[in-house]
């Protein structure tokens, strides 16, 4: 375990470009995020928020700069990092007929951790059922994932990442499918996780349901960091508005 107060995510002058693209999407970004921090990444569409998350967990390669996560270099140990970092993807759509139950999908979060040639053991199943209880989705455990509502699917994916007992949780617009009460409910779960030492990084446009802790806002614009400060939950929306509100479509 990384000790409290230490940076678990360290980006140093990084540039990230997509395969075949002429210009990098992320330009000269440097940030450090500490253990147990609750960070919200804001900014307009296309600012590079998703790209930043995938740079952190090593699914996208940087063209320049250093990315260190949990004291490991992303370039050489990306897979080890991903075993300890949960990532809830932004755009998912599942075939209604896909042959997997919600429970199986939650268990999938642990597959990398379990490693090849091994079967899930009792502990794995326990973590799965705990995560599903936490998100109150045990009643839909046996349902086919493709036939759940968007919000239910979203909760399954969040449970999937919590079931892997992550040191860091990256969530890309996890609230977009959730109603206000559920947003508050999930927000509080994430806030508690942060208090227990899990670093939370959320890309979000919804600021009406935030846990009652200090919130680090990182606002992005055009691949750069436009604002980075810590404030109370109530101030988040205005701060983000200052950065992205005046430049629609930028």
């Amino acid at each position, binding site marked *: 375990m990384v000790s409290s107060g230490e940076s678990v995510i360290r980006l140093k002058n990084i540039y990230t470009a997509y*395969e*075949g693209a002429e210009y990098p999407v992320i330009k000269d970004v440097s940030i450090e995020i500490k253990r147990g921090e609750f960070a919200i990444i804001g900014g307009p569409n296309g600012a590079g928020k998703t790209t930043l998350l995938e740079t952190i*967990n090593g*699914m996208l390669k940087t063209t320049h700069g250093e990315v260190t996560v949990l004291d490991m270099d992303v370039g050489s140990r990306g*897979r*080890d990092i*991903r*075993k300890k970092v*949960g*990532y809830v*993807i932004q755009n*998912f759509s*599942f075939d209604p*007929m*896909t*042959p*997997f*139950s919600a429970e*199986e*999908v939650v268990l*999938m*979060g*642990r*597959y*990398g*951790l*379990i490693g*090849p*040639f091994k*079967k*899930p053991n009792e502990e794995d199943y326990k973590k799965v059922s705990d995560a599903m209880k936490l998100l109150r989705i045990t009643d839909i455990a046996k349902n*086919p*994932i493709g036939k759940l509502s968007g919000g239910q699917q979203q909760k399954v*994916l969040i449970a*999937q990442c919590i079931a*892997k007992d992550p040191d860091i949780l990256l969530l890309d617009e996890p609230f977009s499918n959730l109603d206000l009460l559920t947003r508050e409910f999930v927000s509080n779960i994430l806030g508690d996780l942060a208090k227990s030492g899990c670093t939370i990084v959320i890309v979000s446009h919804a600021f009406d349901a935030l846990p009652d802790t200090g919130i680090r806002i990182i606002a992005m614009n055009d691949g750069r960091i436009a604002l980075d400060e810590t404030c109370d939950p109530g101030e988040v929306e205005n701060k983000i508005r200052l950065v992205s509100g005046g430049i629609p479509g930028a």
Partner: protein
Amino acid sequence: MLEFIISNNIVCHAVEAMLFASLSCSILGVIVTQFNVSSIGFTMAHAAFAGAAIGMFLGVNATAAAVVAGILVAILLGPVAEYSRMSTDSILGVFFGMTMAIAIFFIAYMQYLGKGMSASALLFGDVVSLYREEIYALALISIISIIFVYLFYKEISSLIFNRKIAEASGISVKPLYFAILFMIAIAVSLSLNIVGGLLLFVWLVTPAATAYQFCNSLKSMFILAPAIAGVISIAGALAGLAWSVPVAPLTAIMITSVFVVAVIISPKRKISYSKGY
């Protein structure tokens, strides 16, 4: 291998060939259909087809040539897609057309040269004139397919569900993906001259599609698809040889008929009123 049950050597070899071809193709077929890579399966089959036609034309072992061509496509697919900056699907389309053209060209040319008989085996299959080694190779790839699916079930299921989620959980997605491509290439190439290049898709797609009508989990599909394919293929081989009709086309018709029946009686098409009404 099955001589102790079936005394007639020709019948025995035909049954073995059909059984092992159907096992390997249908198991990998579950991955092909669920992973939505049917186009990769088709392209591999055509590459193997073209390879076999070239091999036959040159007078080398057609099956070996088919395996080489299939593996070549598996290796080239990724890099060509990346290099040309095109989607894998477009590349597959290009490969598909090219290999089909090569195959047809050589088969037509061989017909012109009077070697048409052997070429027709490539199209429609032939279970009688097989080498013992081909059957052994098929048995081996069937066993490898079963072990592969058993050992990597977690990883395969996660990849089938969602590639991004699989990668994010810390699975090595790329090696797994290539391993799957290789297995398909080999299974398809080895089955080619038994079931025929034009009928190969029946073994690759239909048993999995049939199993899908009854299964709610991937695990059960991996069991039911080869069971269906194996039983029908053995029956097809025995019936075809007994009635002196071509084995592979007969079996293909049988497999497809079972699929049609499965669709009609599938529980997936029935609405249940037992809950909440």
